[in-house]
Every structure is written in structure tokens, then in C-alpha cells.
């Protein structure tokens, strides 16, 4: 661990990347955010007038942003490898008693990678949504929300201060809330949206406290100062920071124990699932960990926690994915699992940061691809999501099938598809770190192969099981072209990212640092073992679902299946541990409030009233009684005066 010295951005001796103030094109980085933000404002405030053209405005805003991103990327390529980080200060946000926050952007290799992913995949999904949401009367609003999401996500990855990052962080949470609950008339959607937001807020607690801790430790929350000072900070504080940031990341990235919202979030329209809940937003947690590399590098305990969380989640997600009959939920389980991989990698430190980001990007490609494919299927199947009612769709939807298949091959890690490169690297890194973790990652790969094959078989192969009134058909071109684009990226993205130029590892190296560990066994052997496991997973799935007919009604299944269907009792645990006691607490507090706190006040008032009712009887109305009282009182006054005066 102590060999690490190459992170942190400020002017410290070991750091070799200098952040420069931006000039020229790069100083207009803010336009990246401004386009979609403006689009969102126009669409949401524009009213019904824009119903006809809204989707085009939204798509245009996103595409402009993408164009801008490409231009910036090109500009960045023009710089030398260790001079690609730029500060884009915008305005001073506030200065509260010495705690100064500047609204500013930091464009470096890491944020560039994200910007390209977000705007690129985002634009494709915008295009796709034009077709997918065609019949929705609130399409304009949908595009407004999507633009809002893109803007917030870009702010998240471009921010140069944790507090500004937090704005984007919450912004994507809001967009996610709005989009999950887009079909608000469905109570399940509204509930899922609220759940997502609230669970995210639990993570936000971590974020808020992390930033508060940074103020205590560093007096600032800007990346520059925090990373520069991390070396001098006590390890206990760094560990605390790491754990708090991990809590935040768990919320946003649906990692254990805050994973429960992601499956419910599938209530949202499918493009949303693809963009937010697969490709970009849910990976923000990984971004946060990688971005905070300077802290994690010096906080070994926190990193161990990250690895553990990642490992648990990757297995959990995979197991849940195996049992779900709802195609989107199966994919959501898979997303959880894949992000678990990324977390695991990020937790490995400099050895894994780059691979985490690598997998994040390839996952963005193929998972978005598959989600959109699933959306395409649903589009053609009257919004049916139950895979037991699919089957044999490859004939009806050839394009969807082919693109989905490419995504499938990518995710299970068949060379030379994208997932193979990225996931394999993570497994390697995991083995290099700890054999147990490595084994878990390997098993995860096997399960991934199993459940993805299951999805593939149940949806596109096997016999048809759909209902009478459903007439599956291929989706319009506006939807298939994005699919094709993403499929192409799934096919070549991995190899391209790894090998073109210096590859992503070298690209990110100034930000994340680099480190190699020796594997306990030769790389080739590990690759071979991984492939064997994957093939085994595929084979098992074939035996269970390909060879024999899939029942339309779900069989009872073994206990593990039942547990997985119920999200491994995540919700049940939440309900038992948080919701029920919470409701009980709330109800009893209302009781306490009315009877206890308010009761005490009212009781006091009643007691006073009662006492006066009793004392009122002294008021006989007989003037002689009053006179007696007065005389006695006067006598007492004299006595009192005497007592005071005379010693």
C-alpha cells in the first residue's frame, strides 16, 4: 500500500499531474451542463406549446452536449498525458466563516471518460425514447426530466468540490425520482420513486457527514485541497471519511445494504432504466470512490469495506437475477451485480481503479444495450415484462435479438466482447489481492453467465408462450438504431478502450495511479478457468431452460429461488427492521405527543382550572370574610416586616 504516491492533484512533490486553469475551448466546459439544463428549463416551463417539438429539443440539447464533449476530448488529446486536468472556475458560491466553496468544474481524464459515456449513451437513449415514448401524452415532460438528469449527472462528474458534486448527486437523485415515478398514476411507480429517493437520502447522510468531516479536517471540501492534505491527515479520519463516502456510494449505486430500491426502480420507463439505472447514475458511487482515490489510498480499512460491500453485492445481485421472471428486474439484478464488480475493483485501490472505470464504461454500453433491447421487446409485446410469457421472439424481432445477443455475449465475458476485457481484469485484480475475493468474483461470473443465458433463452429462443392478443413486432428505426449503436460498442468497446492509444488504463493513470500485484497463478490459466466457469454457467442454464419447456406459471422453486425472488429478503429485512418499528414509533410518538407532551400542557391548564374552581369557593361573597382575610393579611405583612427589620 505504501508504494502509492501518484494521486492527488495539487502541487505536492510526488504528484505529477498539475491542474491548470482552463483556457480556450476548455474554459467553456460549462456549456456541457448548460445545454441540457437549458433544455430541461425550456421543456418544463414551456407548457403545452412545446408538446409537438419537445422531444426534438430535448434530444438536440443532449446531442449538442455530446458534440461539445467530443470537441473537448479532442482538445484534451492535444495536451500531453500529464497535463490533461483543467480547472474551470465559474463563480464563488459562498464563504461561510472561512469555509469557501467555489462553483467550478474540474475536467480531467476521469471526468472526461464519464462525460463521454453520459452524453454519448445519453444521446442514444434520447433518440430511442423518441420512439419508445411516442404515444405518451407527457413525452415533453419526459424529455425535460431526461435533460435534467443529464445536466445533473454531468455536474456530478465535473464538479471540483465535494459540495458541488453533491448538488449533482442530489440532482440525479431528483431526476431519478421524477423518472421512476413518471407514470405517477400507478401507485407502485410513485411508491418506488419515493423509496428510491429516501434510500438514496440514507446514503446522502454519509455524504453530508463526509463533507462536514472534510471541513473539520481540511477546512475545505474542494478536491484540490482535500487531496493535497490527505497525506497529512490522521488515518482514523481518513478511514471515517472513506466509510462515510462508501455509505453515500452504497445509496447511489444500490450496493448492499442500500440495494433495495434498484429493483423497484424498474417501474420507470425502460429508457430510464437503461440510462439512469444501468449506465450512468447508479455508477456514480463507483465514480465517487475512484475520485476519492487520494483518501482511500491512505485508508486501508475503508477500502476493505468497499471490497466487502462490492463482493456481497455482486453475489446478491447475481443470485437475485437468477430468479426474476420480470425481464427488467432480472437485468436490474445483473446491474447490481456488475456494479458490485466495479466496487470491488475500486476497493482494490490503484490496482483496480482503472479497471473499475473500464468495466463501468463497458457495462454502460452493454447494459444500456440490453435494457433498451428489453424495452424494445416490451414495446412489441404490449408492455409485457414477464419472461415466462415471451419465448421465440428472435423471429419476430431480429434486430432486437441480434443486438441483445451481442450485449449478452459481452456481459458474460466471451472474448472478444467488451465485457470480457473489463471483467477479466477485475477478476485478475481480485485474485491478486485476495484469493477468497477472487473466488467470489469468479463464482459471480459463473452465475452471471447462468442468469443471462436464462434471460436470453426465455425471451428470444425456446418456444413462444405469449398471450393471444399480443402481436410481437420489431420496433421502429428510431429505436433500433440506438440499439445497433450500443451493440457495436458492446462488440468492440472493450478492446478499443483497452488497446487504442495507450488504452484507458494509461489514460486514467494520472488520476488514479497505477499498481501491479503478482497473480498467484499465470494469467492465461486464470482466463481459462474463468471461461470454463462461464461456459459451465451457460450450460446449466441450457439444461434448465433450453432443453425443456419453460412453464408459463412460475414453479414453486427451492428455498434459494424463493429467497431470490423476494430480493433475498432485502425488503423484508427493511420492513422488519426499519419500516415496522418506524411506523410503530411514529404512531406511538403521535400518541405521546397528544397524550404526553401536549397532554402535560393541557393537564397543567386543567389542573390550574380545577384549582381555581376549588379556590373559588373561598370567594364566599361575604364581605366580612374578605375583611377577615385582609386583616390577617395586614397582620402578616406587619409580621413579615418585623422579621425582616428586626434581627
Amino acid at each position, binding site marked *: 500500500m505504501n508504494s502509492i504516491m501518484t494521486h492527488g492533484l495539487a502541487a505536492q512533490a510526488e504528484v505529477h499531474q498539475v491542474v491548470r486553469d482552463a483556457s480556450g475551448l476548455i474554459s467553456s466546459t460549462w456549456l456541457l451542463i448548460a445545454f441540457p439544463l437549458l433544455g430541461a428549463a425550456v421543456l418544463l416551463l414551456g407548457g403545452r406549446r412545446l408538446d409537438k417539438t419537445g422531444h426534438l429539443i430535448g434530444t438536440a440539447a443532449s446531442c449538442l452536449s455530446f458534440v461539445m464533449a467530443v470537441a473537448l476530448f479532442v482538445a484534451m488529446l492535444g495536451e500531453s498525458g500529464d497535463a490533461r486536468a483543467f480547472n474551470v472556475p465559474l463563480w464563488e458560491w*459562498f*464563504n461561510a466563516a472561512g469555509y469557501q466553496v467555489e462553483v467550478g468544474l474540474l475536467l480531467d481524464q476521469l471526468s472526461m471518460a464519464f462525460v463521454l459515456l453520459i452524453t454519448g449513451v445519453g444521446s442514444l437513449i434520447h433518440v430511442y425514447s423518441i420512439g419508445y415514448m411516442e404515444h405518451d401524452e407527457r413525452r415533453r415532460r419526459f424529455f425535460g426530466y431526461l435533460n435534467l438528469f443529464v445536466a445533473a449527472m454531468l455536474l456530478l462528474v465535473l464538479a471540483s468540490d465535494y459540495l458541488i458534486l453533491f448538488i449533482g448527486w442530489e440532482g440525479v437523485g431528483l431526476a431519478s425520482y421524477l423518472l421512476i415515478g413518471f407514470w405517477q398514476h400507478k401507485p407502485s411507480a410513485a411508491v418506488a420513486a419515493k423509496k428510491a429517493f429516501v434510500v438514496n437520502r440514507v446514503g446522502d447522510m454519509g455524504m453530508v457527514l463526509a463533507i*462536514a468531516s472534510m471541513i473539520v479536517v481540511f477546512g475545505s471540501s474542494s478536491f*484540490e485541497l482535500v487531496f493535497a492534505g490527505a497525506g497529512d491527515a490522521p488515518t482514523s479520519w481518513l478511514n471515517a471519511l472513506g466509510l462515510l463516502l462508501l455509505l453515500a456510494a452504497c445509496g447511489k449505486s444500490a450496493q448492499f445494504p442500500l440495494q433495495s430500491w434498484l429493483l423497484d426502480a424498474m417501474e420507470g420507463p425502460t429508457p430510464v432504466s437503461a440510462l439512469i439505472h444501468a449506465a450512468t447514475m447508479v455508477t456514480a458511487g463507483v465514480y465517487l470512490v475512484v475520485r476519492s482515490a487520494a483518501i482511500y489510498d491512505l485508508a486501508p480499512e475503508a477500502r476493505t469495506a468497499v471490497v466487502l460491500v462490492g463482493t456481497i453485492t455482486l453475489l446478491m445481485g447475481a443470485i437475485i437475477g437468477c430468479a426474476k421472471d420480470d425481464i427488467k428486474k432480472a437485468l436490474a439484478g445483473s446491474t447490481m451485480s456488475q456494479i458490485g464488480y466495479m466496487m470491488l475493483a475500486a476497493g482494490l485501490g490503484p490496482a483496480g481503479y482503472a479497471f473499475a472505470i473500464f468495466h463501468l464504461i463497458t457495462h454502460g454500453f452493454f447494459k444500456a444495450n440490453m435494457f433498451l433491447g428489453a424495452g424494445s421487446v416490451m414495446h412489441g409485446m404490449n408492455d409485457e415484462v414477464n419472461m415466462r410469457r415471451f419465448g421465440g421472439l428472435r423471429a419476430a424481432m431480429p434486430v432486437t435479438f441480434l443486438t441483445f445477443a451481442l450485449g449478452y455475449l459481452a456481459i458474460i465475458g466471451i472474448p472478444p466482447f467488451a465485457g470480457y476485457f473489463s471483467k477479466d481484469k477485475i477478476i485478475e485484480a481480485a485474485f491478486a489481492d485476495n484469493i477468497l475475493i477472487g473466488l467470489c468474483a469468479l463464482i459471480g461470473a459463473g452465475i452471471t453467465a447462468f442468469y443471462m443465458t436464462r434471460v436470453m433463452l426465455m425471451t428470444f429462443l425456446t418456444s413462444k408462450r405469449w398471450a393471444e392478443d399480443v402481436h410481437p413486432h420489431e420496433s421502429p428505426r428510431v429505436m433500433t438504431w440506438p440499439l445497433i449503436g450500443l451493440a457495436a460498442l458492446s462488440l468492440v468497446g472493450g478492446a478499443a478502450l483497452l488497446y487504442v492509444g495507450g488504452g484507458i488504463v494509461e489514460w486514467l493513470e494520472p488520476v488514479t495511479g497505477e499498481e501491479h500485484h503478482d497473480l498467484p497463478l499465470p494469467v492465461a490459466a486464470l482466463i481459462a478457468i474463468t471461461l470454463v466457469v462461464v461456459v459451465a454457467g451457460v450450460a446449466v442454464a441450457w439444461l434448465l431452460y433450453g432443453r425443456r419447456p419453460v412453464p408459463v406459471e412460475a414453479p414453486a422453486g427451492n428455498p434459494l429461488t424463493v429467497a431470490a425472488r423476494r430480493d433475498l429478503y432485502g425488503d423484508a429485512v427493511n420492513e422488519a427492521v426499519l419500516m415496522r418499528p418506524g411506523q410503530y414509533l*411514529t404512531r406511538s410518538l*403521535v400518541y405521546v405527543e397528544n397524550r404526553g407532551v401536549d397532554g402535560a400542557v393541557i393537564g397543567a391548564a386543567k389542573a390550574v382550572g380545577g384549582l381555581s374552581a376549588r379556590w373559588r369557593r373561598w370567594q364566599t361573597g361575604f364581605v366580612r370574610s374578605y375583611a377577615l382575610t385582609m386583616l390577617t393579611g395586614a397582620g402578616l405583612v406587619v409580621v413579615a416586616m418585623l422579621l425582616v427589620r428586626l434581627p
Partner: protein
Amino acid sequence: MTIPWLTLLIAAPALGAVLTALVPAGRGTLAKQVAIAFSLLSLAIAIAVIAQFELGADRYQLVEQQAWIDALGIYWALGIDGIGAALIALTAVATPIVAMAMWPEAEAEKRDPKAFFALLLAVEALIFTAFLAKDVLLFYIVFEAMLIPLYFMIGMYGGPQRRYAALKFLLYNLFGGLVMLAAVIGLYVQSVDAGNASFLLTDLVALDIPVETQRWLFLGFMLAFAIKAPLWPFHTWLPDAAAEATPSNAAFLSGVADKVGTFGMIALAVPLFPAAAAEFAPVIVVLAVISIVYGALLAIGQTDMKRLIGYTSISHFGFIVLGIFALTERGATGSTLYMINHGLSTIALFVIVGFMISRRRSRLVADYGGMQKTTPKLAGVFLFAGLSGLALPPLSTFLSEFLVIAGTFEQYRAAAVIATVGIVLAALYILWLYQRTMTGPERADIGATRDLGRREIAVVTPLIALILAIGFFPRTVVDVIDDGVGPTLAEVDVEAPPPLVSVTDHAAEGNDE
């Protein structure tokens, strides 16, 4: 001749109140126009006053001092500092908005609406005086006098239980005021003993009061402020008042009028009794944290929308008090900012709930559902107000809540951690309310509900604009507040430790600014 700007600022709404009351009966519209015109005039004067406020100059500016009762050392002493300027701005902005929102509510009442508007302006004048008073007795007098118009505003207009609520409000606050009066006199005695009988804040702050005495006086002041603010367990009047008063009145009450309590804490209780404040701070911090969580949990358990918002206010007041008694400059700055932002967002929430009530004539959550479809604008502004209530960045409320938590974290780690539970609960109560009222299947009888009208949009727009503006560009506001908070906290000998790691010269620059 110098213009007595601050007296002018107080005189404008006071005159407006008189003129509104003089409008002949039956000419309700004229009364409203007069009231709104005068509230706008006050706003203009407030802007002029704040424009003259100079950062980094004297602590109190535009000072006016006129002997009132010379023999007792009572003065008509006014002055504005950063804290006062911020709260004056809030009051001046809020009053015309509330008056606009009251417009239709007053019509729904059977009574002549003019009294309502006249009382509103009277309260505004008193609140201005409270924020400007640099004489403790003057502050006390307006602090108490405020109760009377508010009592009538609650008791004359509103729900079926309004009399009960008004009486409860009055008794609670009178009780606190009585204890405070004793403390005010005790404080005066201290000043007499010191040989300079004076109620002037500056004279009193300069006193060197023994800690024993400080304790009692501090508790006397704090009780009044804690009831007014309100802090658990002195809060139970607020939900009743919030539920029974008309929505705009409830907005004004918890959004603006109650800020006098928290203002009193930071501008009087802390600087007057620094040693006692430091001593009692842990206790008050605990109460504040209880307020935060307790208010939020009770808000979750409510079935009446206005009550619910009342409880959210208790939770938010908990944050404000927490920030003040963390006794860090950041926390106190955050608290003062919180006062403004809470004012804006609570007014927005109450006013919008008022719109909903005016449509369906019910305060109960259960009588709403699925309104998003028929009234998208209403749902939109409601969600916006709700999000500002749950402190979503970059809305203005976020920054204040964050600064409070960060400021508290410097001194009281555990309290800050528990307080953050409040932000989760805030999401729960706001979004659950939104879910139950706006989303889900449309209720059968909701079809004909109309969406926001022009006047309603005019009421909400400035609030939304301000929440956004302060959210994105809080620097000026924070600087102004910091200008007042800094010297105030300097009275207390509690200082936050410097950062563990002093990073670079850049940070030093930041500190110097």
C-alpha cells in the same frame, strides 16, 4: 438632515395598518389594495435600508437612538446588523406575498377581511422593530405586543378549532414572555448595580455579569425564545395554530413571526450571557436534536396537511437552534441563513397547501389523490416547495442545512450525526405527502379541479425565484449574515478548532477574505 431610515421602515407598515383599518366597512377590495400597497412600500424601504448596509463597517449601522424614558435608561434605539438585515429582508419580502395569498382566503371568511390585513401590517411593523431594536426593553415590548394581533389573526379567521388554537398560542407565549420579563428586569438590575442604568443592548453586553446570575437570566430569555421558536418540548402550540389558522396566516406565523424567537437566541441570549450560553449549549443542542427527529417523525404520522407542515417546521426550527447553539460561526451563519430559507420554503408550502384547500375544502391528506394529472402546475410548484423543504441542493435550504450540520459537527459530532437522520426523514414526510396527494390513480371526484390561476402563480413565483436565486448565488447573503454573526459569536469564548490539516496558501487566502 439624516433620514431616520429604520424608523421609517417601521412607520410604513404601522401607518398602513392604521389606514387599512380606517377603510370603510364593506370596501374589502380597497382595504386589500391599501394593505398590499403599504407592504410593497415597506419592501421598497427595506431594500433602500439594506442597500445602505455596508459590509465590514460598523457592527450596527443606521443607528438611531432617542431617549424614551430617560430616568430608567430606556431608549428608542434601532440599528441594523447582518443578522437583522437578512431577517428584515425576509419579512419585507414575505409580507406582500402573504397578503396576496390572503386575498381569496379573506373572502371566504364571513368577517370583514380588512381587520386581517390591518393586523398583518401591524405584526410586520412589530417584527421589524424586534429585528432592529437595540434596546432590550423595546425588544421585549414588541416581542410581547406581537402576540396580540397574532392572537386575533388566528382566533378570528380559520378552522373550527381556531379559538382553542389562538388561546393556546397566546397562553404559551405569554407564559414565556412573563418569565422573560423577569429576566429582563433582572438584567436591568445588573446594569443598575454596575452603576449605569440602561436597557441599551450595547451597554448590557458590556456588563460583566457573574455566571451564577447569567444562568438564571439566560434561562429566562431562552424559555421565551424556545417557546416562540418553538423548541421541543415547548412546541405543542404550533401544530394547532398551523392547522387552525388560515394557510397564509400559518405561513406568516411559522415562516416569519416565529423567527423573532430564533433571532432572539442569536442576537440577545447568546451575546448577553455568553458564559451561560456556553454552559447550557449541550443541553439545548440535545433538545434541538430531539426537535429535529421528533418533529420529523410526527410529521410523518400526521393526516392533516397543515398540521404536517407545522411539524416539519418544528423539525426545521430544531436545525436552526442546533446551529446557533453549536456556537460555531459556521453553524450560526447557517442558522441565520436557515431562518430566511425556512421562511421562504414554509411560506411556499403553506400557501400551496392553501391553494389545495381552497379547491377541495379539506385539510386532510386522505381527501386528495392523483391531482398531478388534472393540476400539473399545482403539483409542480408543490413538489418544488416540498423539495426546498427537504433541502435538496442547490435550492437555498440545502446550503443552510448543510452549514448547520457542518457547524455542529465541529463541536458536537453525535448531535450532527443524529441531525442528519432528519434529512432522511424530511425526504420521507415530504415525498409521502406528495405521493398521497398528487400521485396515484386520480380520484373520481377530482376531475373538475382547476389548475393554478394567474394570481396564484404570481404569489408562488417570487418565492420560487428567491429560493433558486439564493440557492445558486448565496454569496452576498452569506457575507451579510456572516458580518453580523462573527462579532456576535465573538462574545462567546468558544472557538472551533482550526482544520487538522492546514492545506495550502490557497486556504489561507480564503480565510482572509
